[in-house]
Structure formats: structure tokens, C-alpha cells
């Protein structure tokens, strides 16, 4: 039991951090977005895990007017609600990010952050020289 719980906690943390690492360390913009998605999924497990009650079931009453009884234990519905919201927020962020990537690719012909930065810097130098030549 203890081992499983500990392992699961740590696995979730490893996932989060792997996502975080991809976000900040990879230069590929699509990878960054994938990293964000993994990071956020890790947070979702964390939240949903908070609401889990051992031996509980999903918080849905099968029959009308059924009340909470001693016999049935339900898991906490609140984290589920929060995560439903967070999932949608995550996908929305991803969509905007990807749209930006498409535009960036169109303008720069690259989706590697370091390449794009090099292009920008080169252009700035050219621009500066252009001003001087004028």
C-alpha cells in the first residue's frame, strides 16, 4: 500500500517535471507545447488524486433521490470539477500556442527557437546597418 502510494506520487511528480523540462529546455516549439500538456496532465493527476477516497466510487447517484449512505462511499467531486475546467483551459492554451507556431513557421520558416532568434538578431544587425547607410 504505502509503497504503491509513494510510487504513484513520485511518478506523477516525474511526469510533471519531465513536461516542465521539455517546456524550458527543448528548442522545438511544438515540443514545448507537448511539454506543457504533459506538465498540466501531471497537475490533473495531482488534483484528482486528492479527491480519491479508498473504496469509493464515482460521485454519481444511480437512482433518483438516493442519499449518501454508510454503504456507499463516494470520491470527492470537487477536484473533478476543477480539472474539467483545467483540461479545457489547457487545450485552449495549446490551440493558441499552435496557432502562433503556424504563424511563426510561415514568417520564419522554422520552428526551432534558437534558429528563429538567430534570424531575428541577424535582421536587427542588417536593419541597424541599413539605418547607418541611409
Amino acid at each position, binding site marked *: *500500500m504505502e509503497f*504503491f*502510494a509513494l*510510487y*504513484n506520487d513520485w511518478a*506523477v*511528480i*516525474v511526469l510533471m*517535471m*519531465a513536461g516542465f523540462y*521539455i517546456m*524550458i*529546455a527543448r528548442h*522545438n516549439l*511544438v*515540443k514545448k*507545447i*507537448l511539454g506543457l*500538456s*504533459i506538465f498540466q*496532465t501531471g497537475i*490533473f*493527476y495531482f488534483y484528482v*488524486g*486528492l*479527491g*480519491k*477516497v*479508498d473504496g*469509493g*466510487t*464515482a460521485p*454519481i*447517484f444511480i437512482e433518483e*433521490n*438516493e*442519499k*449518501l449512505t454508510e454503504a456507499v462511499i*463516494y*470520491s*470527492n*467531486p*470537487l477536484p*473533478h*470539477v476543477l480539472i474539467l*475546467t483545467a*483540461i*479545457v483551459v489547457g*487545450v*485552449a*492554451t*495549446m490551440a*493558441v500556442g*499552435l*496557432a*502562433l507556431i*503556424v*504563424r511563426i*513557421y510561415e514568417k520564419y520558416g522554422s*520552428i526551432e527557437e534558437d534558429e528563429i532568434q538567430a534570424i531575428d538578431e541577424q535582421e536587427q544587425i542588417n536593419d541597424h546597418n541599413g539605418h547607418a547607410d541611409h
Partner: protein
Amino acid sequence: MFEDIAAIEHFVVMILLTVLIVLTLGIIYLKDLLAAVILSGLYSLVSAAIFVAMDAVDVAFTEAAVGAGISTIILLGALSFTKREQKPQKHNNLPALIIVCMTGALLIYGTLDMPSYGDGKSPANSNPQLAQHYLQKSPDETGVPNVVTSVLASYRGYDTLGETAVVFTAAIGVLSLLGLRRRRRQEDPNLTPRQRRRQQSEDT
């Protein structure tokens, strides 16, 4: 008996999380972005399974539909407009690694003291004004059998309004970023018929 069921549940989650870690490693190291995207779709499906194991069926549904479905589709769509290949990245980023490890260590430090997984008596699960209120009073107060739905739509309906606004914002954002581009492409005579057809289908 509960002990056993719980143990099985824990075990299932453990296996699935291990699968996820493997998938994540794949996403980190694969140079082929298409493959990485497919893996991330798979990742979402496995997550949905984990959510089911954690009793969060609504979340599982959403994750399967939104995470595995919609996300994958928009990722594939984005890839079709950009590149499939990632440039090989040799050096490992040491500062990033340090930051990540520190953050991870902090997280581990935090979880050591947390109510254990599945604890029904934890503050989160036993708060009479929130968790217990929803479970006990929601059928009377809202008349909806699914407590998640009732919280979503009623108790925390305002969050849901915000969520809708987020989706709307994202839609506006995507529209503003990509809307014009398509028009310009249509004027481009060099398009293949297939590309043109694809754009038309997207436009409608």
C-alpha cells in the same frame, strides 16, 4: 475487503503511470514530431484510464475526448502546416535540469506531509462546507444525480462560465492568428488541388 480493492486500484494506477513515463521519454527523445504527437494522443488515452481508476469518470471522458481527440487533431493540423522533423538538439540544458530537479525536490518535500492517497478523512475530502456539502445536499438542492455535473453547473457555475470564456478567447485568438492567412493562400495559384480542397473543407 476494501483494502484489497484499494490495493488493486493503486496497482493499476502504478502500472499506468509507468506506461506514461515511458511515453513521456519517447516524447522527449523522438525527433519525428508526428510520432511524438501520436504518442501524446496515446498518453491522453492512458490518462483517461487513470482517471477512471481514480473514480473521476467525467474527467476521464473529457480527457479522452478533449485530450486524446481534439488536442491530437489540432496538433496534427499544426504539424501539417509546419514541419515534421525536430532539429537534433545535442547539448543537454544544465540550468534547466537544475531548475527542474529543484522544483521536483520541492514537490516531493510537499507530498511527504500530505494526506495519503485515498484518505477519506483528509481535509479536502471531509470539508463539510465543500466536499461533503456537495455529496450530501446536492440531490436536494439541484436535483441532478451526477454530483460533478451539479457542482460544475451550479455551485461553481461561475468557473464554468469562465471556462467557456477561455474557449471563446482561444477561438478568437486562433481566428485572429490564422484567419487572414487562409485567405492569402487561396489567392495563391500554385496550390495543388488537394491543398485547396483541404482549405475549403476547413473554411466550411
